[in-house]
């Protein structure tokens, strides 16, 4: 019962924040709305017993990426941009495309739901906390992807520094 109420409140937070993110005029307000949406997703992670990802979502997304966004908004002067129209000239085409896709989703949910066969739920694993089991999996089975991810982060750091710095001459 409590789970259900919590799911709906977090879902509302997520969707409301997302809608505000894509519709607000000022980019700073968009970033604040994005924080709301990301916090809602973090709550959903906690509801699904993904405690480690909950912490990662708070620290990395809300604490890291959003601050990065705010920094860039401060760096690129958006005062003039905020006075411009928010949406492109051909705004009808994406709206129609998204409406069509949404209609497909709703139609599938109302009429074709019987054809959706979910796999049988698994059985709960043995003891051990979420973080413990996750690190076991990450550092044994997924060790090579983990190292590749670290390489990707290194390339991203170097690339962003090279691109954002001033020309030497």
């Amino acid at each position: 019962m409590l789970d259900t109420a919590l799911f709906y409140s977090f879902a509302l937070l997520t969707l409301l924040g997302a809608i505000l993110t894509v519709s607000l005029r000022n980019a700073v307000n968009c970033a604040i709305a994005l924080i709301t949406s990301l916090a809602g997703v973090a709550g959903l992670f906690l509801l699904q017993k993904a405690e480690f990802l909950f912490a990662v979502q708070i620290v990395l997304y809300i604490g890291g990426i959003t601050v990065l966004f705010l920094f860039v908004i401060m760096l690129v002067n958006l005062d003039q941009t905020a006075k411009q129209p928010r949406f492109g000239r051909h705004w009808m085409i994406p709206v129609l495309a998204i409406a069509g896709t949404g209609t497909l989703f709703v139609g599938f949910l109302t009429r074709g739901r019987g054809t959706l066969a979910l796999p049988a739920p698994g059985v709960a694993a043995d003891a051990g906390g979420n973080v413990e089991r996750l690190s076991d999996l990450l550092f044994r089975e997924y060790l090579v992807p983990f190292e590749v991810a670290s390489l990707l982060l290194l390339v991203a750091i170097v690339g962003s520094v090279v691109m954002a710095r001033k020309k030497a001459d």
Partner: protein
Amino acid sequence: MLHPITVTHYLVLSAALLLIGTLGVLLRRNAVVIMMSIELILNAVNINLIAFSEHLKTLNGQIFAIFVITVAVAEAAVGLGILIALFRNKETVLIDEIDILKW
């Protein structure tokens, strides 16, 4: 009145978030907000992965979500670097004013 929450609820929420994010990418002119919408799309994927990870009681989905977050961070860092370089050269972040590749 309140039904118990199933995977389908999470799938519907994820689909809705994906649609909103896609709408933001296609609709907005401000490149910073477009990158925020991309983050929304990646979060929709993560909700899906976590929902199935909990449904199947296996942690592989959570591992994949970690990798998705890693790629999202790298993408945000590089994208914002590009944006700053672009603003330095063109004095704008509105994507329909950046038409140098358009004939």
